[in-house]
């Protein structure tokens, strides 16, 4: 199976580990991701202003081009890209003014045909967790992983349809299928602080502390996430700010595709595991349970 793929700017450069591990893991499962021949930044963050559409132009162009690829789907893994592309598509389908203005400006005739798909959805729907279990079940040897979704994958539920916005379970199902032990915790859809790292970084430090402590209190050995910014905030903040003396022990934060790649026993140097501040490799190679 070959599906059009939109990596996004961050995956191309600073989250190469997520891009490489996504491609490698899906390839091992029989899905080849075909990067769009030409693409620009999606314009990340969906513009909430209703009185103009300039912020949606980039995403609309990407969607219109993806429609021409012929498959009907577009895979993207970065939470911000997923959120923006899916919401702009929803706007084109449901808001006549948005559709008219965007098509007029771009000189396209796009009607919202492209379907945005997240790799987790792809695994669930095209491969099936049962099939995944038969391929790689038990490989994580009971590793206790807290699945952290963040905001942009799950809200607003009406448009993103990624599961229950307060209690999504798709990532936990993957961890379970691979033989890990998903750790449920109440902060899995709380915001990490996002771009406020640039403006009010104490806010990010506070939220990261809350998320990590909540996961650690439930016995998590690792945090698993899909979003490069969440991963950066949770990882980098530990390294920079969390003091070592207050009884807090560092907890590795990795991408769900890296965990999947490790379970599928893919070569570690292609998964980008060495690019994290808190090194997840000792946990993955050593004792998992």
């Amino acid at each position, binding site marked *: 199976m070959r599906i059009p793929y939109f990596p*996004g*700017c*961050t995956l191309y*450069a*600073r*989250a190469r580990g997520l891009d490489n591990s996504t491609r490698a893991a899906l390839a091992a499962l029989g899905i080849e991701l075909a990067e769009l021949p030409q693409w620009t*930044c999606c*314009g*990340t*963050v969906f*513009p*909430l*202003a*209703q*009185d103009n559409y300039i*912020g949606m132009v980039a995403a609309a162009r990407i969607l219109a081009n993806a429609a021409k690829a012929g498959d009907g789907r577009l895979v993207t893994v*970065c939470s*911000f890209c997923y959120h923006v592309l899916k919401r702009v598509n929803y706007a084109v389908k449901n808001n006549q003014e948005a559709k008219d203005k965007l098509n007029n400006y771009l000189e396209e005739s796009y009607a919202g045909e492209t379907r945005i798909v997240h790799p987790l959805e792809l695994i669930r729907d095209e491969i099936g967790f049962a099939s995944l279990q038969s391929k790689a079940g038990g490989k994580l040897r009971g590793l206790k992983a807290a699945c952290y979704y963040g*905001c942009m994958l799950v*809200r*607003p*539920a009406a448009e993103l349809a990624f599961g229950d*916005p*307060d209690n999504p379970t798709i990532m936990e199902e993957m961890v379970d299928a691979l033989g890990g032990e998903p750790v449920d915790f109440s902060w899995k*859809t*709380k*915001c990490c*602080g*996002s*771009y*406020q*790292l*640039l*403006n*009010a970084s*104490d*806010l990010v430090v*506070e*939220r990261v502390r809350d998320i990590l402590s909540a996961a650690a209190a439930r016995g998590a050995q690792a945090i698993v996430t899909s979003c*490069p*910014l969440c991963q*950066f905030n949770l990882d*980098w903040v530990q390294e920079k700010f969390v003091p070592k003396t207050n009884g807090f022990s560092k907890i590795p934060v990795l991408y769900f595709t890296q965990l999947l790649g490790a379970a599928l026993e893919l070569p570690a140097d292609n998964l980008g595991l060495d690019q994290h501040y808190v090194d997840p490799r000792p946990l993955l190679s050593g004792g998992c349970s």
Partner: protein
Amino acid sequence: MATNLSFQMSKEISGRIREISGQNPYLCIQCGTCSASCTGIGKMDFLPRQVIRKIQLGDPGVLQCRSIWVCTACLTCTARCPRGIDIARLMEALRTINLRKGNEILVLEKISLDLIKEIPQMALTSGFRKLSA
């Protein structure tokens, strides 16, 4: 804390808030669920509920509050509002009115070089979209 109850906000600004957000602030019953869910309350001068109240009462000072700039657009308030108000869009409207006048909070020069060299680009892109003019 005393609030001036006379509607001081110009029709133009209050109209602009409604136009940009597409939301009716008078649907708000001041239940406080948004405040309870908010990511940024630790750094806000006014809670989201209070910001909506200021819009309802026509307090032009709402455009100067710090709250709108420490919002992360996490959409939790929108998801939880029992009256179905998209509160994130109201916050965005207040930011947008400021940004279109050139009042911005994220100034390039203040971002540390270390951060520029490491941070995922999506943070810069989204930060600029939300916080700079």
